[in-house]
């Protein structure tokens, strides 16, 4: 009897150990580092949460490293992380070019590098998930053309463009895309000024000054929703009513959506944060196991997205959406802070 009991217990222990090891393997495929450029910005903070949760759903543990918007710090963090030999690195670069040597070093060490949100075209990476900053500028330009036409009868008028920090390529690329599309309309005068360090009160000051110097401004285009808040405060202080001066912003943060609901903002060009993060999780297994990623159309959280094979590697582009009063409550927008209910499934 004793022998039977011992044998049963031993068999049970072995079975449990086997099950535990199998479960652990299925649940934890290893660690991935997410190099986030800053946490002083709603989009970036929400991206940490989204990437951590979506990657967890496909079996990876994510640890985020905040670079505080400092290129040198992010480079040093990359060096440290490479030494830890993670399964992969997800990089949202502070500076698009300065991180190239770090990407090359990681890949040389056999660590795949996935690029998030801030596209790097000057070196090879293993996967890129972006909405496209230049494309955000295009979408904004299309929307602004429509708003000016509705107000003035044709695409003409005066637009104040408030950029983010002029040292940040992110804002410069939005400007590039926007101005490229607006070139076709010489009757639109664009005044462009940067809000240093993406600081809201700097944007407020610019709006205050320009409203005095150019009282005929038709529309203000700010490159981030938190700058729109300060712009609205300045409009209000100058006695303007909601809608009197049109306002367009980008990134789709919750505060931007609130401003649309209150009637101050006309359009918010969304960076599809949830879909961008979900795409990383969908393709993580393929990237980490060095499997081929096939070009073509993919459904990412209901958004038709396209994978192309570019000179810098596989690239998925997820379309940015224009949010206005008609669709502002749609839960697919990350600014409504309702993550998708269905878990992410890896691409077979």
């Amino acid at each position: 009897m004793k022998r039977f009991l011992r044998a049963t217990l031993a068999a049970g222990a072995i079975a449990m150990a086997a099950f535990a090891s199998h479960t652990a393997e299925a649940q934890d495929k290893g660690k991935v580092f997410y190099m986030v450029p800053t946490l002083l910005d709603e989009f970036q903070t929400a991206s940490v949460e989204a990437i951590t949760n979506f990657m967890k759903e496909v079996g990876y543990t994510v640890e985020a490293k905040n670079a505080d918007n400092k290129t040198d710090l992010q480079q040093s963090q990359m060096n440290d992380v490479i030494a830890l030999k993670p399964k992969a690195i997800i990089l949202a670069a502070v500076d698009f070019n300065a991180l190239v040597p770090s990407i090359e070093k990681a890949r040389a060490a056999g660590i795949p590098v996935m690029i998030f949100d801030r596209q790097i075209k000057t070196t090879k990476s293993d996967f890129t998930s972006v909405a496209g900053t230049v494309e955000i500028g295009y979408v904004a330009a299309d929307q602004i053309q429509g708003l000016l036409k509705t107000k003035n009868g044709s695409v003409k008028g005066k637009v104040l463009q408030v950029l983010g920090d002029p040292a940040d390529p992110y804002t410069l690329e939005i400007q590039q895309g926007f101005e490229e599309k607006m070139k076709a309309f010489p009757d639109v005068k664009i005044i462009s000024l940067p809000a240093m360090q993406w600081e809201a009160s700097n944007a407020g000051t610019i709006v205050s000054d320009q409203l005095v110097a150019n009282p005929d401004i038709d529309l203000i285009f700010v490159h981030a929703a938190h700058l729109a808040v300060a712009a609205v405060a300045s409009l209000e202080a100058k006695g303007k009513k909601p809608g009197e001066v049109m306002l367009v912003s980008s990134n789709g943060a919750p505060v931007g959506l609130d401003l649309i609901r209150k009637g101050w903002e006309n359009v918010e060009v969304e960076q599809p944060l949830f879909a961008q993060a979900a795409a990383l999780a969908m393709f993580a297994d393929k990237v980490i196991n060095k499997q081929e990623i096939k070009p073509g159309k993919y459904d990412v959280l209901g958004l038709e997205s396209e994978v192309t094979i570019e000179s810098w590697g596989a690239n998925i582009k997820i379309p940015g959406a224009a949010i206005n009063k008609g669709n502002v409550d749609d839960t697919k927008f990350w600014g409504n802070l309702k993550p998708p209910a269905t878990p992410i499934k890896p691409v077979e």
Partner: protein
Amino acid sequence: MSARQRAIIEFMLDNLVWLLLIVVLAAFSIGIPSYFQIGIFTNIIEDSTYVGVMAIGLAIVIIAGNMDLSVESVAGLTAMVTGILFCNGGIGLGYTMAPVEWLAIPVSLLLAIAVGGIIGFSNGLLVVKLRMNAFIVTLASYIWVRGLVLALSGGRSAQGMVPELRIIGIPIDPILLPPSALIAIVSFIGFSFLMRRTPFGRHITMIGGNPIATFRAGIKTDRLILVSFILAGAVAGIAGWLLAIRTSGATANLGVGMLFKAFAAVVIGGVSLKGGIGQLPGVYAGVLLLSAIQTAINLMGLPAHYTQLILGALVLAAMLIDTLKLQIRQRLA
């Protein structure tokens, strides 16, 4: 040289920054289209509000011979606290003091002063009791307080200040300035009086000039240094409160970069970084000067980098003028 001539030269040296401000405003008014108008001048005063208030506390600590790098983050923290409690969008909780709604003004202001004062107290305590270097102590506060802002907000923003507070940032019709700008002006007048006409101010200046001699004269130097740090924190708290009202909300990076502007204003305003020298009206002129230049850059559409170039050059010029002033004073003596 007659006593009258000497007095005139002394007056000129003491108020050099005001003269510079007048010259700069005149030059911009002539050279930049649409600069010369009431709206622009009120903008300059309004934009000087929070950096100006922040610079008051910073100047007091520097005159006392110390340093406070934490004022920017303290302002960021009190802005966030005000935003979270009194905004109704984003992470704002939208508290009101109904039925006596105006109570939101004193309550939020006192809260901001208390939060700032507590951080100032902790800075001062470490400097005075543990004899730690003020630069290091306040540098640490600069970092951890900003971290606290991030932790409190989770990186998210508050937006839509309740109307009873927002009114502080809206210009009043006849004077075209918001109450926030008047608060800054009154603060400068009040603290200038405190520094010039009271034993506290004179003792603070004496400590900055020669702490050992002041101590030997029976003045409680440690207590006064502690008070200077508490004041700097509390005043930075007011600056943050004004900042939240001005932007009708708070973001985790609100106020970033203002320490540099406040420092520049203090130095341009004639406060010696060695301590013991400086007057608050000069600091206000320094803030106005920076704001006038910033506005000119905005109107001219110059790339923002010019602001930093000009600011750097101004600080350097201020240091040179300071050295020159000392030499002239030595000759006059």
